[in-house]
């Protein structure tokens, strides 16, 4: 047990370190922050933004029902962040194994006294931590915005929404990690991950077009549908289970795929 944790920690630290000293990771983070910040400003403060709309409705005196601005904002903003992440995450996961294969360091990992799934778990934890670090500044500016809301906005909804986003990201990264283990080309891994994620993202749109037993079953797999629950402040255990299943599936497939590598013609 002790060696298990020390191995996991070693892999995790190396993975995390590789992001924090890679210019590539910083470029991705900066793009994420720029676009994320731009969304925030546009949704709140632009002439067509939420605050302006509510203000206009108030002036006309035609406000049939009260609008919960922070709640509306959080819903829209988290959806945008989710969509943005769909583009960013494949780029974070693409190198997880493809890079190791290209450099030959996978041979080092495979000949060390380590189980494959420990390596996979350590790597996944590393990349999820980096994504969390990318999310943190955006969470802080949201907190600043919510600070001024009157009455106070419950922090639990905000945190639940971000927890959902983190689960979504971990699922996508786990699948991306598996795809990354399939080849030694990072570009190929990114493109394939993007394709798979896109299909899972819109699978409920496909599901509506399909007949009864297949359609509803497919809808349960939709990332978007379950993520939307979280952004609305609804905690649904089926969403949690779905995301955890994707993560476990990704880890399992990665471990299997790395094991299979040894049986291939080198």
């Amino acid at each position, binding site marked *: 047990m002790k*060696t298990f944790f*020390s*191995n996991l*920690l*070693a*892999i995790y*630290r*190396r993975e995390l*370190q*590789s992001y924090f*000293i*890679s210019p590539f990771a910083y470029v991705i983070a900066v793009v994420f922050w720029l676009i994320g910040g731009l969304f925030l400003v546009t949704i709140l403060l632009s002439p067509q933004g939420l605050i302006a709309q509510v203000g206009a409705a108030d002036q006309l005196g035609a406000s049939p029902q009260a609008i919960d601005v922070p709640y509306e904002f959080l819903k829209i903003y988290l959806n945008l962040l989710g969509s943005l992440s769909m583009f960013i995450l494949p780029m974070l996961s693409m190198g997880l194994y493809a890079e190791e294969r290209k*450099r*030959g*360091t*996978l*041979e*080092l*990992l*495979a*000949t*060390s*006294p*380590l189980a494959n799934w420990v390596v996979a778990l350590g790597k996944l934890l590393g990349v999820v931590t980096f994504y969390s670090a990318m999310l943190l500044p955006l969470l802080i500016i949201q907190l600043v915005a919510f600070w001024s809301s009157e009455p106070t906005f419950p922090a639990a909804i905000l945190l639940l929404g971000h927890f959902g986003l983190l689960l979504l990201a971990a699922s996508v990264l786990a699948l991306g990690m598996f795809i990354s283990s399939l080849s030694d080309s990072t570009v190929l891994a990114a493109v394939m991950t993007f394709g798979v994620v896109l299909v899972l993202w819109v699978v409920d749109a496909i599901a509506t077009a399909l007949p009864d037993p297949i359609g509803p079953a497919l809808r349960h797999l939709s990332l978007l549908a379950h993520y939307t629950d979280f952004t609305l402040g609804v905690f649904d255990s089926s969403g949690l289970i779905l995301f955890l299943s994707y993560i476990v599936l990704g880890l399992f497939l990665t471990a299997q795929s790395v094991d299979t590598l*040894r*049986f291939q*013609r*080198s």
Partner: protein
Amino acid sequence: MIEVDQLSKSYGSTVAIEDVTFTVEPGEILGFLGPNGAGKTTTMRILTGYLPATQGTARVAGKDVHAESMAVRQNIGYLPETPPLYPEMTVEGFLRFVARIKGVSAGDLADRVSSAINRCNLNQKRTTIIRKLSKGFRQRVGIAQAIVHNPPVIVLDEPTVGLDPRQIIEVRNLIKSLAGEHTIILSTHILPEVSATCDRITIIKQGKIVATDSPEHLVGRLTGKDGYRLELRGEIDRCLSVLRTLPGVTAAEVLAADGLAEGRSRFQVTTGVEDLGSAIAARVVGQGLELFELSRNRASLEDVFIDLTMEDSASDTTLAADPETSNPEISNPEVLNPNTSDPDTSDLEASTEATADREEAQEENA
């Protein structure tokens, strides 16, 4: 320390190694010699637990490499052909990482890393990022990662490939200094390497072991190949007849005479008895021929290697059909051994004579 018994590995229908059997005693350096594609890397990968064998068993420190893989991995240090390095890490950071995943306890970590760094002479580069290191230093970091957890067995796959001559000598000395407390297997296709570093040599050809012996014994098998080279001035036919009529000379022939001064030619003399040099010189001079050079060529390890790895490639149609295992370059000694400046050390004509010796060698191995 290492026992390999009838190990076979095939990739689909291609046989990579077949019935490979050898043992390595504790503290010994075994050289694994063979042309490219002979199955050296495959054997090493099976030993390190990276590849599963199709048949046969391999045991490292008494443990089966497949059934007790984790225990074996802890006891083995492995340097693959391309050193597995993370270019963005510092030398020290990388070695600490490797020590951790190899199961070195936190208390010993700093000591182990320092001793690996000292061993491999990496002290000045301790905090340098690996990306900025030269090829020679990277190779040393590769060796350092193989020894950082102080494994009883070290497996090195072509440790000197791509290094300059000075770096090659440094790496060889490093390897030699590791022998004794560690058991080492190293693979190479460079011949001086094995004669310089190894206690024993296993020659592998097209997936099969053709000989295992000490370098001296291997060379000793080809004693029939002793001969002399002469540079003479005189009429070629006369020179030949003088040489051929000398008692003890079994054959004499003209060698290519490029670059020689007008009227001079080079001859190769094959002798049946030992130490004929003085007799040849006396005879040649006595007959009024002018002698410019007389040198003895002994069988070298290279001759043994070429002899063992080159023969019957024409008759062996199944192997010749496989482009990866048959190696046409082997007939060119220059390719085999880029470090030898003398292009004539290997004498291809003589290899047929040694067929008998070779067959004996194979029987011994079987």
